[in-house]
């Protein structure tokens, strides 16, 4: 029996790959998949200088928890951990980490992809992209 719980967190501090990995470790797990989303220097041909993330935190944590549970049930995961950054994110910094542990690797991969797809669709977090010639809220342009 797993006595650890899924982890969801939203933080203004840098996210740690090692820490999220540790959150999903249990003796029953053999396959662990992590997705790490980082701030890229370019988007659609424009140079990005940095990002800002805003979140409706209590609702976002609730949605992240639903995704973690749903990934766990759907793919028979051992554990799922989801962390997202808010505030200013510099180039190369981590915006999001998903960690999934499973007995076998196939399910860990599938669950990890499912969780990041769901997060991008449903979790109330908003990204403002800062380019050299201005800034805009992603997904909200005319």
């Amino acid at each position: 029996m797993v006595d650890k719980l899924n982890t969801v967190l939203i933080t203004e501090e840098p996210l740690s790959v090692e820490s999220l990995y540790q959150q999903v470790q249990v003796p029953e797990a053999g396959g662990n998949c992590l997705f790490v989303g980082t701030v890229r220097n370019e988007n659609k041909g424009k140079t990005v200088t940095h990002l800002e993330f805003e979140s409706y935190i209590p609702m976002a944590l609730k949605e992240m928890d639903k995704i973690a549970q749903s990934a766990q049930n759907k793919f028979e995961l051992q554990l799922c951990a989801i962390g997202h950054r808010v505030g200013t994110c510099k180039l190369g910094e981590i915006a999001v980490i998903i960690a999934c542990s499973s007995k076998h690797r196939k399910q860990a991969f599938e669950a990890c992809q499912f969780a990041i797809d769901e997060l991008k669709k449903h979790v109330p977090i908003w990204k403002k992209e800062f380019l050299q010639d201005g800034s805009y809220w992603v997904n909200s342009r005319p």
Partner: protein
Amino acid sequence: MKVRCFGIAREIIGSDELIVDPNAAQSVEELRKLIIQTYPEFEKYSSFMISVDFEYAKDSFQLTGKEEIAIIPPVSGG
């Protein structure tokens, strides 16, 4: 009744909170119409959802005025 505003909604409204007369918005649908009427920029810039007590709410949801309500523009986390 207070409506929390995030992202582009916060910028369109110019505040992180919007005060709405509960009689003018007794359902999520009415609240949505009121917001677009008051801030037509929403039509141009962004569609949005309404959350009630930290859950996405359907248009038919009836409001009592005591819920925690928020405007949820298209999300873009990750």
